[in-house]
C-alpha cells in the first residue's frame, strides 16, 4: 500500500475508534447489564477485597461477551484499534530507526505482533459468543 493510503486509513480508523470507543465507555457505565452502575462493589465496609458486584463483576461482563451486538462492537473496535496502534508504532519506530531495510523489518515485526494481538482478542470474542466460558 502507498503511504498516503496507509495514513488515510489511520485517520479513518481513528474516527471509527472514536465512535466504537464511546460505545465501549458507555458499556461499562450506563449501558452495563449490571443493576448498580458503578465499577466495583466490594463486600463489607473495610473491604477484604472480595468483589460482589459492579459493572466489572464476572456475571455482567460475561453477559456482555455473550451478546452478539456487543461481540460485534468489540470485534470491530479491536480491528480498528490494532490497525491504528500498530501503524502508529510503525510510524514512530521508522522515525527512530531510519533506513529502508530497517523500515521493512519494523513493518514485518509489527505486522506479526499486531496479528497476535488481533487473534488473541478475536479468540476471546468468538469463544465468548460461542458460550465457551
Amino acid at each position, binding site marked *: 500500500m502507498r503511504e498516503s493510503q496507509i495514513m488515510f486509513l489511520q*485517520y479513518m480508523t*481513528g*474516527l471509527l*475508534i*472514536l465512535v466504537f*470507543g464511546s460505545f465501549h*465507555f458507555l458499556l461499562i*457505565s*450506563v449501558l452495563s447489564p449490571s443493576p*448498580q*452502575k*458503578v*465499577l*466495583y462493589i466490594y463486600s463489607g465496609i473495610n473491604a477484604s*477485597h*472480595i*468483589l460482589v458486584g459492579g459493572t*466489572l*463483576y*464476572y*456475571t455482567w*461482563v*460475561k453477559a456482555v*461477551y455473550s451478546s452478539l451486538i456487543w461481540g460485534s462492537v468489540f470485534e470491530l473496535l*479491536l480491528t480498528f*484499534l*490494532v490497525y491504528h*496502534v*500498530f501503524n*502508529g*508504532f510503525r510510524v*514512530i519506530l521508522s*522515525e*527512530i530507526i*531510519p*533506513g*529502508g531495510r530497517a523500515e521493512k523489518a519494523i513493518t514485518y515485526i509489527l505486522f506479526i505482533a499486531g496479528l497476535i*494481538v488481533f487473534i*488473541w*482478542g478475536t*479468540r*476471546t470474542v468468538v*469463544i*465468548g459468543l460461542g458460550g*465457551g*466460558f
Partner: protein
Amino acid sequence: MTIENKKGWISWFNPFKYGSDRWMFALHRLTGIVLGLYLIAHVWETSNILNGQVTWNKIMVDLDYPFGVHFGPYILSLVLVAAVYHAFNGIRLTIVENGLMLPRPYRPEYPYKAKSLSGLNNVLKIVLGIFMIAVSAIGIIYIFTGVII
C-alpha cells in the same frame, strides 16, 4: 539512503522553545504509546473472562488493589484522560492535516510567523479543549463515584 535523525526520539518530548502545537504533538505521541501498550495489556486482561468467575474476579481485584491500595480508579482515570486527549487532538489533526480550517497559501515574509498556527486553528484548539475537559471530568466522576452526569 539513510537520513540522519540527529536529535533522535528525545526531541519529540522536548517541546520547550516551541509553540503549543509542539506540545500537542509531544502529548499525542506520548498518549499514543501509552494507549497502544494499554491495548495489549487490556486484550490479555479481558481474555481472562474465559477462565471462569474466580480467576476473573481475582484479576479485577488484583488490578484494583495492586499494592494494597485502592489504585484502580487512578489508573483508569489516567487511561481515560490519555484516550480523551488523543481522541480530541486526533480530531483536530484530521481537520488541520487535511488542509481544512487553515489560511490560504501566502508568500512567506519576514519574520516568517506561520499563519497556520493562529486563527481558526487556535479556535479549534480552545473548543476541543473545553470538550476534552468536560468529557474527562464526566468520566473521572463516574470512575470514582459511579455517578453518571
